[in-house]
């Protein structure tokens, strides 16, 4: 029986966070620090004709103004086409950095940034995806083009079909913490404090940009104030910070303003989708055609695999799910929480609801009719799949059977009531990851891995896993992350950290056990003689036989007898070979009640039941937080979020939190999150799947479906603001 895994535990770093002891990238104290402020372009495309920095250079406190004319060039890296600032006179997107002012204080740098005068040769730009559809092309990686069966013919012959287009605007992550870095050099060695979801990625990026060995770059990022994908890629400010620090021979800090974040780290792309579904009269799907187009930048290819998961959700022999991209004069998009999945499922799950109404079948029933017992894409069995249980439990908790089928059939005074549901899906990814454990003879352990904790509770989860398998109490474990001096871990993205890094921590703990057993059995009278490592476990300092705990050795005495103050093991966990024989996904079902004001079109999400099946839950407390956070994100996407671009200027008009809305407390009413645990021995030794993204995937569609049920209006373009419902 697990002592800690599966039990609620508060965040181990919680007190440090609420007391301010936790240091975020911009908060490290470095002596002799200079402050950089980025000057952003005011056009979307063209070249810099002239740039006059004289007045800025004369301003109080200014140390230097960098532009493309005096900034050193970074190394060209064919593997990494991401944007690097101040490399030429070319403007690729609006609010692109055109200068960096470095001064003695932040305010001095910001003030002087306004004195930099830039003249441009503007060129005709295009930032509107809608205007570029004729140029849509397949991403060059060529993935996701396989067609299943003959969807066109199947659709043509289907007795019941629906077809519609869905639109999602650009959205920005808007984590609380702005992106920031502090860089300093000691000779040719660079140290940088950065807000990032992957210290090793930033290290590789910086080493290649400066043409120095990776070992000479240290990236430190112990705390991240939310990221949601915006800190997956290295972004352009770390190179800029390190460049300035190198040139000025003193530490430099750069912090984005909220506005700069809108052109500083990518966004969810503008996405247009067409979904056509064909079914027989019993509701069985015979054809799925799901086509998406979204934008990328002019200098880099990005796609979020919008239609990827659509292939695996429903049993349907005929399917085409494609994604094309168009090049816009905007910065490159990036992954944003539940990338691709939430966009694709908004379209697919809205279309399923439309099909349910075309068939006059209950929307939940339609999902059950088309339940995929095996992976429809590969034909492989699922490693585990408790989606049916999610549907049924969610329906019961929500009271779905009381739903009246007809739209506009439920009411509470001035408010129209709507009930909608949708399916959520995400991966069960695992990537190679390493962790190091040092067990000390005083009964404590130090566990490290260069992963990140952007909020999901990685510190806590890893502490729990280490405590479990070292047989110690959580208080005896110190887990650290976010430092390239620790063993390599993947980016914290794709909801794969617990699976990947957790497996590494588990593996390192097992290696410690094996090492102790080896030590014990050097003694002729060892009570564990003949036992294999898998036969023993550590528990409260005893190395004992699992089958007979009375046969044990005191682990810490053992270490002392061998004059060992500590023993250290590093373990790299890799996805097992066995995984290849299975299809692996995490699933969920979402049930939503909305109230729509019959006169004013205001939508209130009054109740959500979200049931999730994602393997084993390591820490229910932080896990529920993740799902609730996902729900709130779903509410924002459904009802509020949109980055608006004035295409005449190719410029974002709402790059701040007064104009770009995210939900406030008053928008979030009753949210119940429930887990259906799956016992999955295939995915990884811990049996855990991804969950951080999963929680939002079905929400926008479920809300849109509920709005339809309330009003009879099908809104296919997000966000669903009151004006669309008048």
């Amino acid at each position, binding site marked *: 029986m697990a002592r800690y895994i599966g039990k609620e535990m508060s965040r181990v770093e919680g007190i440090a966070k609420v007391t301010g002891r936790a240091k975020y990238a911009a908060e490290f104290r470095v002596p002799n620090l200079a402050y950089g402020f980025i000057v952003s372009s*005011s056009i979307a495309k063209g070249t810099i004709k002239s740039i006059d920095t004289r007045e800025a250079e004369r301003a109080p406190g200014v140390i230097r103004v960098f532009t493309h004319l005096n900034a050193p060039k970074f190394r060209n890296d064919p593997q990494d086409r991401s944007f690097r600032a101040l490399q030429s006179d070319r403007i690729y997107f609006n609010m692109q950095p055109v200068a960096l002012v470095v001064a003695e204080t932040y*305010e001095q740098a*910001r003030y002087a940034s306004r004195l930099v005068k830039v003249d441009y040769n503007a060129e005709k730009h295009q930032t509107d995806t809608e205007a570029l559809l004729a140029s849509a092309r397949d991403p060059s990686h060529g993935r996701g083009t396989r067609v299943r069966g003959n969807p066109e013919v199947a659709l043509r012959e289907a007795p019941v079909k629906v077809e519609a287009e869905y639109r999602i605007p650009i959205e920005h992550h808007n984590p609380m913490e702005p992106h920031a870095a502090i860089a300093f050099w000691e000779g040719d060695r660079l140290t940088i404090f950065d807000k990032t979801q992957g210290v090793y990625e930033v290290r590789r990026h910086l080493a290649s940009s400066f043409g120095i060995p990776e070992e000479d770059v240290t990236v430190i990022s112990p705390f991240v104030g939310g990221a949601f994908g915006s800190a997956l890629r290295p972004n352009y400010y770390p190179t800029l910070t390190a460049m300035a620090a190198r040139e000025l021979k003193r530490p430099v800090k750069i912090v984005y303003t909220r506005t700069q974040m809108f052109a500083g780290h990518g966004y969810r792309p503008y996405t247009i989708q067409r979904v056509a579904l064909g079914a027989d009269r019993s509701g069985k799907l015979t054809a799925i055609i799901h086509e998406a187009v979204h934008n990328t930048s002019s200098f880099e290819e990005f796609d979020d695999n919008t239609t990827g998961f659509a292939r695996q959700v429903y049993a349907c022999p005929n399917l085409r799910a494609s994604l094309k991209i168009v090049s816009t004069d905007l910065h490159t998009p990036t992954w944003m929480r539940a990338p691709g999945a939430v966009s694709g499922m908004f379209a697919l799950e809205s279309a399923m609801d439309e099909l349910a109404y075309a068939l006059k079948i209950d929307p939940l029933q339609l999902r059950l009719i088309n339940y995929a017992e095996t992976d429809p894409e590969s034909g492989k069995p699922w490693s585990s799949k408790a989606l049916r249980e999610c549907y049924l439990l969610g329906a019961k908790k929500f009271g779905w059977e009381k739903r009246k089928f007809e739209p506009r059939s439920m009411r509470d005074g001035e408010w129209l009531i709507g009930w909608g549901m949708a399916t959520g899906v995400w991966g069960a990814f695992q990537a190679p990851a390493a962790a190091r454990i040092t067990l000390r003879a005083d009964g404590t352990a130090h566990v490290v891995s260069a992963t990140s904790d952007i909020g999901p509770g990685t510190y806590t989860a890893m502490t729990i896993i280490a405590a479990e398998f070292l047989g110690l109490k959580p208080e005896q474990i110190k887990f650290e992350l976010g430092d390239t001096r620790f063993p390599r871990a993947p980016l914290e993205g794709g909801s794969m950290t617990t699976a990947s890094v957790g497996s590494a921590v588990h593996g390192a703990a097992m290696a410690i056990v094996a090492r102790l057993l080896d030590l014990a059995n050097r003694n002729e009278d060892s009570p564990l003689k003949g036992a294999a490592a898998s036969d023993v476990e550590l528990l409260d300092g005893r190395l004992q036989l699992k089958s007979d705990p009375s046969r044990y050795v005191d682990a810490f005495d053992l270490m002392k007898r061998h004059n060992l103050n500590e023993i250290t093991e590093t373990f790299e966990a890799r996805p097992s070979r066995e995984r290849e024989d299975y299809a692996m996904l995490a699933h969920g079902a979402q049930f939503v009640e909305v109230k729509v004001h019959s006169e004013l079109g205001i939508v209130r999400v009054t109740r959500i039941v979200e049931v999730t099946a994602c393997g084993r839950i390591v820490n229910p407390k932080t896990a529920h937080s993740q799902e609730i956070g996902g729900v709130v994100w779903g509410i924002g996407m459904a009802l509020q979020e949109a980055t608006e671009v*004035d295409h005449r200027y190719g410029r974002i*008009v709402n790059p701040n939190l007064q*104009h770009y809305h995210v*939900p406030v407390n008053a928008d979030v009413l009753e949210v119940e999150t429930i887990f259906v645990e799956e016992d999955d021995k295939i995915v990884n030794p811990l049996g855990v799947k991804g969950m951080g993204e999963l929680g939002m995937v079905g929400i926008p569609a479920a809300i849109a479906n509920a709005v339809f049920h309330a009003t009879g209006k099908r809104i296919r373009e997000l966000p669903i603001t009151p004006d669309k419902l008048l």
Partner: protein
Amino acid sequence: MRPFKYARATSEAEAVQLVSATPTAKFLAGGTNLLDLMKEDVERPTQIVDLTRLSHLAQIRPTLNGISIGALATNAQVANHPLVRQNYPLLSRAILAGASAQIRNMATVGGNLMQRTRCPYFYDTAMPCNKREPGSGCAAFHGLNRMHAIFGYSDKCIATYPGDMANALYALDATVKIRGANGQERTIPIRDFHRLPGDTPEQDNNLQHGELIVAVELAKNDFAKHSYYLKVRDRASYAFALVAVAAALALEGDRIKQARVVLGGVAHKPWRSTEAEDALVGKEATEANFRAAAEAAMKEAKPLAHNAYKVELGKRAIVLALQRAMDETI
């Protein structure tokens, strides 16, 4: 921010004199609007005169004929004041519909009246905006104007006055008390306080440079029984109005003796609809009459490319606000 001089005023006279002496000087009250705009480089004062130590200006007190609210009273103080809640519930409601609790704790009556538009083009110094930079053009006119005016705009400016409190003050016929550069006091009826943009959108209102708002005064009225503030916005809190309605009715028997219908979020100033009011006076408080008033209010609306919804939404909001004013009898 740009460098500026800072002075803390110790008297009204000193405050007025300091600001009058420098054309680029500004008063500072709660700072919730001015500081934001300074950080964005939209406001560029060279001298700041801090009013916050003039504590006598924060008083709220009864007068012979009503109430006097000091210009430095915070939004929270005004909204929660027993006299305001009892006699002017519309004002309390309107204030509480604005901003957030934290901001209402800082924001003052004077600052709230003076708050500038939330037009996104006004906020971005890389875009043309006649209000920010006269003569540069209006980017919003043919731009993204979902939030903009449907009444009283010009080709120079389609921005709206974004506040909530003022909509109630217009309905309640407030008077703004001002101290001028020469030390003299004058008053402006609230309905003449803000301006329409015309050819000079850089001027939000009729206050002269250096003039200090010292108080807002409200006379007794018969509206306390039947009034309602309805704000329609994109999220439940902490958002500016798509359309807001300050509605107030005074009844005599079952006839409407006096009516006030003021719309927010539709013009460069709170938009008092005398058309709607005229349509109501002398009539019974029925839904049909409310609808007729709503139609009258919107008759002259001239929506732009992205804000036609405000016409229909405005009508429905007026009807609802009037209905609730009748329901919420206290």
